[in-house]
């Protein structure tokens, strides 16, 4: 079975400061890794994904994440945040094969950007 742990439930940060949202996963098989963002009363929007290849993945809105297999981590980073980045962020894994690619999500991290 797979599981995802987001180590911080809330991350307050000032505008233009850097931010890192932490994600660790557990799986006995290879997984694909995702970060989604959810704005209030909205569905989830894909920020970025790691399928294979380069361990540094760049996504939308200036976000990037690094896959670290030895530490089973996939932390999300942004060098300078904006007020508009305030939202809930979810890390997720999927296993292709016979599970159809269903996503296993972490509990979420609420990013609050203050002026």
């Amino acid at each position, binding site marked *: 079975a797979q599981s995802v742990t987001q180590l911080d439930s809330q991350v307050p940060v000032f505008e233009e400061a850097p931010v890192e949202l932490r994600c660790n996963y557990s799986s006995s098989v290879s997984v694909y890794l995702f970060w989604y963002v959810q704005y209030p009363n*909205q*569905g989830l929007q*894909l920020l970025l994904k790691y399928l294979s290849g380069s361990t540094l993945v760049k996504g939308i809105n200036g976000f990037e994440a690094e896959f670290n297999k030895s530490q089973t981590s996939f932390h999300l980073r942004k060098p300078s945040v904006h007020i508009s980045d305030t939202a809930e962020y*979810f890390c997720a894994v999927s296993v292709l094969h016979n*599970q*159809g*690619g269903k*996503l296993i*999500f*972490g509990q979420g991290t609420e990013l609050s950007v203050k002026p």
Partner: protein
Amino acid sequence: GAGVSQSPRYKVAKRGQDVALRCDPISGHVSLFWYQQALGQGPEFLTYFQNEAQLDKSGLPSDRFFAERPEGSVSTLKIQRTQQEDSAVYLCASSLAQGRTEAFFGQGTRLTVV
């Protein structure tokens, strides 16, 4: 439309009432997923369709939950005899194929059972 559409956006049901939640996936998307998101939690998998075939329903919490996708397009999630613990946002997602391709999410249906 261009995205995944869910209806209704909000639903208030009295305990014991049956409800039906609709999902219109992106045209041509083979895979369709339902997730349940309780307040302050991450989404949890309910069920998965590949075209009209329901290949995984391991996440359905009880036999009161039933999902169908009879023509391989629109899907309906039905909850019978709703209970207060069913209150959540129900998210639908579709993808062109399984696994490697991006899953696109609808805005969800917020169900409140009173």
